[in-house]
């Protein structure tokens, strides 16, 4: 266990293991995404009140769920890089931010498109939507803050602190629909007790959520690999890799 943890600190090892993981995970992810979308959009019944417009749930909910989970990944990576000064944790934290921002943006846009026919408005300042917008700004803030520093170490420290402070927003987003009166409905998928979404609609949704988690992992690994190559461009292992690629 500890050797695995220590090996994670080695850039060439991380680069090669992430390559192996991606070779398997990427095709699985794409198949799962395609299957989930076809299943959700074509082979489920329409909702008894919303008709077909509810189908946006198959993009909206997975994007939102993974955007929240991705923030924890970013904050925990930030904490590890603060405490143990692990370079690879810093790389992971930096790689999380743009992916999380993209997912949050997707969740906000699809929610807005669904809101117009369902609620009758594109946007309303209720607790869930506003806290989700804050999440988008936190992600973009981490991206911007990292670029604002010339010194990578100082940038990593500042971003780690920002992502740790922003972590308080995640439970607020999650519980906002229960704590306050909001326009957004409470969660349909319940961890305890029966979900208030029909099983025939729930299974493709669970498949899409898993596919989005896998997609997040793939994007994270690809981002980290690109960042590793850039940071280690002058080292022997990258030079050797570049020569190999050049020959083949």
């Amino acid at each position, binding site marked *: 266990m500890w050797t695995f943890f220590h090996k994670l600190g080695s850039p060439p090892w991380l680069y090669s293991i992430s390559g192996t993981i991606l070779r398997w995970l990427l095709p699985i992810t794409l198949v799962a995404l395609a299957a989930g979308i076809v299943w959700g959009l074509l082979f489920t019944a329409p909702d*008894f009140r919303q008709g077909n417009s509810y189908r946006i749930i198959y993009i909206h909910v997975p994007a939102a769920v993974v955007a929240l989970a991705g923030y924890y990944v970013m904050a925990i990576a930030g904490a590890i890089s603060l405490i143990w000064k692990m370079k690879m944790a810093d790389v992971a934290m930096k790689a999380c931010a743009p992916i999380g921002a993209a997912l949050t943006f997707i969740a906000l846009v699809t929610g807005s498109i669904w809101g117009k026919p369902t609620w009758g408005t594109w946007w309303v300042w209720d607790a869930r939507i506003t806290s989700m917008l804050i999440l988008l700004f936190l992600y973009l803030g981490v991206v911007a803050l990292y670029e604002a520093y010339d010194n990578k170490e100082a940038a990593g420290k500042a971003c780690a602190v920002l992502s740790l402070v922003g972590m308080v927003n995640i439970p607020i987003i999650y519980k906002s629909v229960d704590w306050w009166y909001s326009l957004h409905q409470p969660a349909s998928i319940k961890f305890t007790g029966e979900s208030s979404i029909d099983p025939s609609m729930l299974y493709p949704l669970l498949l899409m959520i898993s596919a989005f988690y896998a997609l997040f992992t793939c994007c994270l690994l690809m981002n980290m690999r690109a960042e590793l190559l850039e940071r280690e461009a002058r080292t022997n292992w990258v030079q050797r890799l570049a020569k190999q690629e050049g020959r083949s």
Partner: protein
Amino acid sequence: MHPVRKQRLLLVLFIVLFSSAAIGLVTYALRGNINLFFPPAEVAAGMAPPGQPIRVGGMVAEGSVRRSEDSLLVRFDLTDFQASVPVEYEGILPDLFDEGQGAVASGRLNARGVLEATEVLAKHDENYMPPEVADALEKSGYDHKGNKQ
């Protein structure tokens, strides 16, 4: 654990706890403002300021929707089963607006205690099911929330 790392771990914990406490206090102080709407019971208790723009949310009372013959004027009652607020609205209602469903109306309370709404939004609940399942539930005497009717 190395003492320096232990110190940094404590610092991280401090950052998380301190920012949570700060944001927690702010949201606690602003809890009234974070709510999107007043439930009818709070309006009846006089907690909603008259003449100011507010939102009232609740269920559209069964049998309360009355449409005008020659304009887009609609009258209905919003209820939370403790109190109800009469609403007047002139405009197009969202597709999901219906009796027995949730809605949020924004506008001002006039002197008669009627909410003159400028916008009405439909509130969707967390229940999703195919139409056949909804029909079957209704036939067996349950509503879509699983309550016996």
